[in-house]
């Protein structure tokens, strides 16, 4: 081989080496990038799917057949007693509540004002069933902007339902549920749901004896929903549950939720 041919081979090999290493480098990085993006999308999709499943479960929990049956029975009772005005009033409350359940379950967030209205309706219908055995209080902090502060739907009502069905229901005599909305700052607020029922520890024991898993299941659904909401970065909801007997001589359960909104309003418009 002549010297020029050797030089040509050498330079060609060097050029080829550089080009091939560049192609290899970019192909490897692009493939890895695409794989990672695909994995992230799949995770996001799975989370969304799970979120929807949980929302559906929450809606099912709200629309639970026992509650519908008991409410309609109570209304029927007033009709039988010929208390037409009272039965009409409760029927309208019940239909409004059903409408709210469906309407709010489709939304990503609802205002505190709407949530309070739903809870009030719900508690009034429950009071119809329990009559004098149930009292409720809704305390709203004056500093709380109920129209401009939001929370995810179907979070508070299942907790209130648990307080009534698993706390107060098993208590002898009158029971009370108190819901306090407390402002923390412009972007966060606290909700405390307190009942003077038998307490979560006793309720869990009773359910274990009856092999009833509804309470555990609903609180699991709630906790998983809160985790997914946190993962979505839209919400930061701190959730604590406490048996009052653990810290005082009272009985009952106190659930505290602290809502911190992680997303501004514009992000919800799309």
């Amino acid at each position, binding site marked *: 081989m002549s010297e020029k041919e050797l030089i040509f081979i050498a330079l060609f090999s060097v*050029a080829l080496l550089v080009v091939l290493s560049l192609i290899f480098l970019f192909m490897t990085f692009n493939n890895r990038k695409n794989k*990672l993006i695909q994995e992230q999308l799949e995770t996001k999709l799975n989370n969304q799917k799970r979120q929807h499943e949980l929302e559906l479960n929450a809606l099912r929990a709200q629309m639970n057949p026992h509650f519908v049956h008991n409410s309609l029975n109570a209304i029927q009772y007033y009709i039988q007693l010929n208390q037409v005005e009272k039965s009409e009033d409760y029927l309208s409350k019940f239909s409004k509540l059903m409408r709210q359940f469906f309407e709010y379950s489709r939304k990503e967030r609802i205002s505190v004002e709407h949530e309070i209205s739903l809870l009030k309706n719900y508690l009034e219908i429950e009071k119809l069933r329990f009559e004098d055995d149930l009292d409720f209080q809704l305390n709203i902090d004056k500093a709380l902007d109920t129209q401009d502060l939001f929370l995810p739907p179907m979070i508070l009502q299942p907790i209130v339902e648990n307080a009534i069905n698993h706390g107060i229901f098993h208590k002898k005599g009158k029971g009370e549920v108190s819901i306090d909305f407390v402002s923390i700052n412009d972007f966060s607020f606290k909700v405390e749901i307190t009942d003077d029922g038998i307490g979560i520890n006793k309720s869990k024991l009773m359910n274990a004896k009856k092999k009833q898993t509804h309470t555990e299941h609903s609180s699991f659904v709630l906790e998983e929903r809160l985790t997914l909401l946190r993962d979505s970065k839209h919400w930061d909801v701190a959730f604590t549950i406490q048996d009052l007997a653990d810290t005082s001589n009272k009985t009952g359960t106190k659930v505290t939720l602290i809502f911190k909104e992680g997303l501004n309003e514009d992000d919800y418009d799309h």
Partner: protein
Amino acid sequence: MLSQDIILRLLMWLPQIAAFVFAIVMWPKYKNTTQRNFIYFLGFVLVIECFGYLLPILYGVKRAYVYNTYTIISGLFLLIWFKSILQTKRLVIVFISVFIVSISYCLFFQEFGVLWKIPLVVLAIAILICSTVFFSDLLTKNEVVNFKTDQKFWIVTGCLVFYIGYLPLVLLQKYFGLSGIYYRIPITINISLMFGFIIKSFLCLKKN
């Protein structure tokens, strides 16, 4: 021959000047990163190119003096930079030590007026290994999704491209009889490519 020489010098200098200009313009965007010293390095490269061109003409100083100084300073700079960006610091410390040993060897056993090849080969191998480690590290991180806007990625790619082409040229230079224009053309293209990637590393900061 003079026009060829000018073309080759322009091909080499223009990307170097452009890289320094971009380093100045984009300074606020990377002044708090591990790449902040590149502005001084690129300025140093221009000074060395000026000295390498002017000193032999004006004072008859051997070019190898200038380029050996460049090898020592640029080699140490790049290795120290790799130490700051790689997780496996020990490996880079070993390379820095071997590089210093190779420089010491040349200082004692070779003339300063001849271009030192041992430190160059050591540096090329060290940078190729460091680049590979950097890329394999990056591939395991989530940041790989945004690799095109990662300044470090483009600088390392520039180093890799330069040294992957430079190493066989230096090692096989004698065997293939590469000298004069046949040696300068691939080296110039390699340098232009490397500084092209360094320019890209500053341009990608805009997208960030």
